[in-house]
């Protein structure tokens, strides 16, 4: 291994008596991308926070260039050349790209004012250094999420000479093309001798860019070594602490597919049209069927789901449940008809972080738990207890705030919110995004189970594996229109990819 730039040695960390890290050691070598994987609660975030000075280790130590260090604050770590890039973009949306890049240390002219000419020139320079062609005068908010993320990354790299870069799921909001750009930057940094720690749930990415990998489970390091020596299935099995043959038999996802569906559709969406967004999208779902919606970012997957759920208005077209027309543009009407939507952005549109698990679960069910405008606490408690148990929501109790739960458990709370409405159609928009492998498997198994019980399910996932393994029928969208449908045994990654990539889709590469 190359020179070790940053190292954790036998780090132990406890929170309120609970062991979060139990003697974890990790070495980040210059010119290497080191993958870090594990379920939520395995200790990944804690380890990152210890390396970057957010937390202090209870036992063991952090060594920087071979010397023991104690970073008291994240700023100290940053000054020592350790940059961290988080999932969320911490930039100012109303300022230009250039201003964001140099926020806090803008080039000034003799009057002490910002020297725009120099600012823009320097901004173009640093972006160019990473092969990025972005208009530096544009307001950040007018750019796509992926581009914003790239700006954030370049900012983190240029603020202080970064020798160690830690990336915490940087690709969760990126399109494939943007991921390529990011990986080019990663490669370049590696070539410059930077040490990278890369946290991701996406196995493809790990195998694409990492040289070494460390697996954490329950606060302990269960594997570390070159990634080439650890096959995919073994990695998943190690992460989950499960038997390899079990994983091999059942595939990487818990989705089974091949459900027996009834003949009459439970959901019929006809000619959904919205200017510039949806172009005559039709879709039927039968009870017990999982219909996958595939498409690139911006193809109209989420928009289709939102239209069906009454969250967005339509210019033309309509939705029927069980043959009865649903009033359009009203979430209330859609919910009453038995449609449930698990939104794509769990934090922004799903959970209410400051409210308890109980209040989050019963949110949509409030009217049916109420008589004369008063909520029956007893009935609410029963309902909450039932679903916390059924979905195995891990929490200190129904009073815990949802904001304190892991992503997987938050997602289960949202599922519970909808399941207690006894829906007939479940629209799932990225149900497993950003949740750990264990919770992912649980959610996938649940989706299967629900379909078996006769729910109609529409599944949107950027994880192609999920769509291919889980869906009985895949509808492929492109530019807001249906570009093809694949059914049964024809559902393979190749077929779906081919439909994604034909003609119009080819334009994007």
């Amino acid at each position, binding site marked *: 291994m190359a020179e070790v730039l940053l190292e954790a040695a036998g780090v132990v960390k406890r*929170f*309120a008596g609970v062991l979060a890290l139990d003697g974890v050691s990790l070495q980040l070598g210059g010119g290497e991308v080191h993958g870090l994987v594990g379920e939520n609660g395995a200790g990944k975030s804690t380890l990152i*926070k210890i390396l970057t000075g*957010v*937390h202090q280790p209870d036992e063991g130590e952090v060594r920087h260039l071979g010397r023991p260090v104690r970073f008291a604050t994240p700023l100290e770590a940053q000054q020592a050349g350790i940059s961290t890039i988080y999932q969320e973009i911490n930039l100012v949306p109303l300022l230009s790209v250039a201003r964001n890049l140099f926020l806090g240390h803008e080039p000034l002219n003799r009057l002490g004012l910002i020297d725009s000419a120099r600012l823009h020139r320097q901004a173009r320079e640093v972006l160019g250094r990473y092969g990025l062609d972005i208009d530096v005068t544009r307001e950040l908010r007018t750019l796509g999420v992926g581009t914003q993320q790239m700006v954030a990354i370049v900012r983190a790299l240029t603020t202080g000479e970064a020798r160690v870069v830690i990336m915490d799921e940087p690709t969760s909001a990126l399109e494939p093309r943007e991921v390529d750009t990011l990986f080019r930057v990663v490669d370049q940094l590696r070539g410059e001798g930077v040490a990278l720690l890369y946290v991701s749930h996406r196995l493809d990415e790990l195998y694409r860019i990492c040289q070494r990998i460390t697996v954490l489970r329950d606060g302990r390091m269960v594997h570390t070594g070159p990634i080439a020596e650890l096959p995919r299935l073994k990695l998943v099995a190690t992460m989950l602490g499960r038997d390899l043959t079990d994983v091999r038999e059942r595939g990487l996802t818990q989705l089974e597919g091949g459900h027996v569906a009834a003949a009459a559709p439970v959901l019929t969406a006809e000619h959904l049209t919205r200017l510039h967004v949806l172009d005559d999208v039709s879709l039927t779902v039968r009870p017990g069927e999982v219909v996958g919606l595939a498409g690139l970012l911006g193809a109209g997957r989420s928009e289709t789901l939102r239209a069906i*759920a009454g*969250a967005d208005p339509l210019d033309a077209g309509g939705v029927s449940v069980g043959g009865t027309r649903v009033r359009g543009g009203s*979430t*209330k009407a*859609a*919910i*009453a008809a038995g449609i449930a*939507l698990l*939104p794509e952005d769990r934090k*922004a*549109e*799903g*959970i*209410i*972080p*400051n*409210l308890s698990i109980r*209040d989050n679960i*019963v*949110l*949509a069910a*409030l*009217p049916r738990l*109420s008589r004369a*405008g*008063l*909520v029956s*606490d007893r009935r609410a408690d029963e309902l909450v207890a039932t679903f916390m148990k059924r979905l195995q929501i891990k929490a*200190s*109790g129904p*009073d*815990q*705030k949802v904001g*304190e739960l892991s992503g997987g458990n938050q997602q289960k709370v949202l599922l519970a*919110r909808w399941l207690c409405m006894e829906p007939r159609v479940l629209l799932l928009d990225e149900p497993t995004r950003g949740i750990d492998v264990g919770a992912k498997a649980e959610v996938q198994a649940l989706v299967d189970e629900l379909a078996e019980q006769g729910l109609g399910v529409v599944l949107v996932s950027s994880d192609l594996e999920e769509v291919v393994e889980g869906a009985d029928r895949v509808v492929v969208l492109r530019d807001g229109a249906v570009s093809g449908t694949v059914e049964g045994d024809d559902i393979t990654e190749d077929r779906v990819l081919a439909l994604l990539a034909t003609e119009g889709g080819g334009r994007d590469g």
Partner: protein
Amino acid sequence: MAEATAGVGSGRRSLPAGWLQDYGVYVGLALLVLVNALFTPNFLSLTSARVQLIQVAPVLLVALGLALVIGTEGIDISVGSIMALAAAVIPLYLGYGFAVALAAALLVGALAGAFNGFLVAFVGVQPIVATLALLVGGRGLALVIANGQLKQVRNETLLALGNGDVLGIPVPILLTAVVALAVGFVVRRSTFGRQVVAIGGNRAAAALGGLPVRRVLLGVYVISGVLAALSGVVTTARLTASDPRAIGDLIELEAITAVVVGGTPLTGGRVRVLATVAGAILMQLIRAALIANNFPDSIARIVQAAIIVAAVLLQRRAS
């Protein structure tokens, strides 16, 4: 329970700050009473308690409505002007009897609140801007209605509302207590109350959850308007005069202070009724205590400002 709370900050020791945010207002109130019991003459007397509580009643009525509005991540700065509108309307209808005048005043409050709520919920105007319109325009309208004049009121029932007793308890105190209990009940037990905090906590999620977001928003502004009008009626009764020029002037700031000092975050998602009551009483007592000890009013204001800053700092640390 202690453990569950300790887990909140996940590492950063936020237990004291979180605890202080929740209970600081009660601790402050208890300390204040204790210190004054020792140093301020006649502080603990029944007469003095009555006076303080009667004085705080109008602010508290307004603050209780505001707490609901703030719970939805909104604000209503027009409450003082709504008080003026209600006060201006009373003399016009007092000839038909107290009940008619009261109903007219409350109706005006409801209409004003509906105006605010319509702008916020249906037009999508920011709450502070929407209610700013009525803050400015409402008092103007009140002065037009009242012809710019102060009018004495002589209706006995109305005057009893401001100065009477029931079972030895002054009517304004009784009325405010009833309203506080009602608002508390609504927040805790009603569907509407749950929807208020859900909308304040995450409006997009509430909308996707099929909640009647617009109706609830309209509702909280109407309630705020009605309670402001009620406060206007009580104040008019206390003054024995309808004075649309001065009534409720800057009361929106006092009411917001009570809510904030009580630990309700301005970012919504939470409504703390009892703490708002404590917050209003705390601010009232501080002022009274300083004045009783011969500090000038200017000092009282500065101390009040310090308490607001402290309350805000506590909230920041906790979040």
